[in-house]
């Protein structure tokens, strides 16, 4: 599973990146969390509101930073 956090490098986006990394650790899954700031790739994904959490190139959350528990449940839902 490929987990991506997309953002333009603003504090909100970085927070989602940090929380996602923690969530992955907490779940104990072996997945790489990638932080994408390249605007071209962000737009290509078809999303417009930062930050974005995506699994395998599919956005599952846009526009806000949820708490770690929410991220965990999203990640475990996306796994199966």
């Amino acid at each position, binding site marked *: 599973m490929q987990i991506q956090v997309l*953002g333009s490098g603003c504090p909100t986006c970085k927070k989602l990146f940090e929380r996602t990394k923690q969530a992955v650790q907490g779940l104990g899954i072996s997945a790489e969390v990638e932080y994408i700031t390249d*605007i071209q790739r962000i737009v*290509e994904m078809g999303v417009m509101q930062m930050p974005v959490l995506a699994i395998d190139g599919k*956005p599952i959350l846009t526009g*806000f930073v949820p708490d770690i528990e929410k991220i965990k449940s999203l990640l475990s839902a996306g796994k199966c």
Partner: protein
Amino acid sequence: MDIFYPIKLLADWLTPNVALNFFIYDAVKIMLLLLVINYFMAIIRYYLPVEKLRDFLASRKWYGVDYLLGSFFGTITPFCSCSSIPLFIGFLEAGIPLGVTLSFLITSPLVNQVAVVLFAGLFGWKITILYVMAAVLLGVVGGFILSKLKLEKYVADYVWQIKSQKNAIIDKKEPFVKLIKFFWIEGWSFTKKITPYVLLGIGVGALIHGYIPAGFFEKYITAENFFAVPIAAIVGVPMYANAVGVIPIMRSLVEKGVPLGTAMAFMMAVVGLSLPAALILKRVMKIKLLVYFFGITTINIIIIGYLFNAFVK
């Protein structure tokens, strides 16, 4: 009767200090209003994400109504400056005209639910409605003029080449009972996030209220002073602050004698245009478009300032 009267009693009971009393009253009142409105905005955002608004705008020819729609959508979309680039490209890529996209970009930072609550709580509903109308008008007129200038060639070239996959956000169908809780959590987390800025703004406003003598600014800035509005707007352009922090300060300035239109021109320039925003937008706009965008918006802000000074008492 004023439904906020109990808060006034609470503030009076807690402290006689003018600034502190003022701070407690405003802070409690605004925080309560914010909690309510953020809950409703969470509902609106759930059913109307910006992607849907974009698709609606791109779905047909609108013959000019789209400027109003674009500007109006700007008012209900929560806006973080980090999103302005993907929004800009996403709108253009969907086939929405440049002018309409700019209408959206102009209005979006000026009006959001938090700004409306602060305005209503501090200035009353009449001024709030006038402010929202002014901000929407600013977007519509600005976008319309910019579209007439045929500036498409001054959008960064790579923008026109990007093709996005139509990637619908996975639709989360959840039972309504679960949603009620979800909206609450969303609304609450947003309220928590902006609280420090709101309190900071109210705090500075309370200090002005408590320690600057009434009519202090009248000596320097009067509605008759022709240059006050343009100076206020131009000084405000490079500065950046969130609407949330500026509105309480602006209220106290008005209370101490700054004319409303002058204060509003300053506030709109600070919130709507800024050096950081220019630097971000430079990634998608060539310098000429950026200059026109800022120039025309500034001129319109100055006109709005004059109109408020002339007609709103």
